């Protein structure tokens, strides 16, 4: 028997349809907003016209030191992301390994996931001072619960037959973890890391905004204080860019670690 070879398929026009419809609907939405503002149906002092937001990009980039702010927020997110992956996954693994720890802590970790941790920023300010560590730690703490919970879920959800295959080959507990449990749990762990990164980014930008320190959050704060709404929305676009960058990197990492599900 031989492998069936799949001939290289030529891209058909249908392949481009979903992105074209996606971008098209976004463009139509902004055109509608623009139209409603120009017609006076929406107050331009509450919602700036998209054309004005687009025009303010150059100004925000040149005058507001956007690159440095962008890099600062990106670095804070990256640091929080690495920390939450390392500590979140390790925490989940430990809680799965030691049942008492899981029984004792899982409920309050779940409760922490829904708690508005961002409101604890004064405490973090006292502990870490008004610097990037306060922001990173806030992002980290707020994002930890989903990573821990999803790691536990992923490991516990490993199919019993795969565990039994490991047992039948007489694997040591360490081999059982690294060769079976961890790779089997990876897709679920990545769901947790994705959720964690969303939580981290929201909290990081939020705390930057609240304590008026650092990267894009502080810039949004300043622009909002100046009532430069077009600039504010342009800065928000850069926050979205940080998020997109993270998800792209994460997707690459997942494909590298586990090429096919």
């Amino acid at each position: 028997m031989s492998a069936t070879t799949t001939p290289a398929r030529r891209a058909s026009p249908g392949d481009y349809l979903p992105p074209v419809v996606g971008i098209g609907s976004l463009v139509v939405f902004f055109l509608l907003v623009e139209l409603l503002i120009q017609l006076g149906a929406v107050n331009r002092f509450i919602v700036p016209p998209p054309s004005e937001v687009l025009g303010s990009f150059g100004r925000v980039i040149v005058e507001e030191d956007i690159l440095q702010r962008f890099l600062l927020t990106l670095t804070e997110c990256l640091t929080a992301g690495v920390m939450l992956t390392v500590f979140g996954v390790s925490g989940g693994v430990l809680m799965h390994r030691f049942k008492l720890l899981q029984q004792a802590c899982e409920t309050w970790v779940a409760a922490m996931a829904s708690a508005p941790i961002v409101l604890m920023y004064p405490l973090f300010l006292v502990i870490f001072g008004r610097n990037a560590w306060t922001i990173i730690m806030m992002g980290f703490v707020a994002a930890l619960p989903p990573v821990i919970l999803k790691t536990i879920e992923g490991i516990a959800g490993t199919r019993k037959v795969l565990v039994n295959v490991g047992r039948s080959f007489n694997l040591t507990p360490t081999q059982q973890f690294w060769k079976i449990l961890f790779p089997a749990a990876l897709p679920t762990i990545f769901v947790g890391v994705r959720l964690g990164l969303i939580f981290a980014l929201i909290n990081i930008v939020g705390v930057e905004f609240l304590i008026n320190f650092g990267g894009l959050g502080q810039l949004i704060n300043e622009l909002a204080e100046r009532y430069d709404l077009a600039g504010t929305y342009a800065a928000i676009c850069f926050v979205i860019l940080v998020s997109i960058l993270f998800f792209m990197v994460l997707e690459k990492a997942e494909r590298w670690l586990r090429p096919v599900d």
Partner: protein
Amino acid sequence: MAAQNTSLDDAILVADDIGVRFETAEGPVIAVDDVSFKVKPGEFLSVIGPSGCGKSTLFNVIGGLLSHHQGVVSVAGETINGPHKSIGMVFQEESTFPWRTVVDNVAFPLELIGMPKAKRIERARHFIALVGLDGFENRYPGELSGGMRQRVSLARTLASEPKILLMDEPFAALDEQTRLLLGDKVLQIQQQLKQTTLLITHNITEAVQMSDRILVMTYRPGKVKRIVDIDLPRPRTSEVVTSEPFGRYVAKIWADLREEASRGMRDEEKHALQHHGAAS
């Protein structure tokens, strides 16, 4: 055939007085009771019984996955107290690692013993060819059919070169035609490697097609009802299913099993009624 020229005293696998009891909410259940048998080197023995007769429990006991049992399992005179390298298991459920390619799946046991990469890939390719999957080495299990995935599992187990191949209804989830063809493949491999094989199954055709002997089990508690010698010529293929002696063996085993399967069905009905009565 070697198996037929060897006396049971030279048995490679001995199960002696195996008993398993489970505690359930409705009281203790004896799943397997006083099961003893021997398997000769190179022999193909099938264990057949109705659903609920403790076949899979017996599979777990022999594979060393179930430690709470009575009796002794020994391989080549050595008592087994857990999973053992002499016994290679193929499971009923799909058990390939979806994150590894076919070749990496099959090379898994060789990786565990620290075989150098180039050598283990070469060995893995040999076993992949043996199960007829050459050309699919770099595919992932998700790209293969159910039957092909079971062949990957079989190749992975064979790669560990076990003294005894222990299979628990490996083709149960497949259609009849695929099952017959894979039966052919297993027979061919078993004859080629002179592989001692213990097959747990509920499929009479499959058991008669492949076995030298068939151990028929009773419904709960699972006991040995009879051991039937299958005197069909070897080498065998799936064509044997059209022969008259094959039909006689199937009829003989069904006569034994029918009573047990009916008892199992009645028991399940009674159980369902009790539960329904308690619920309403």
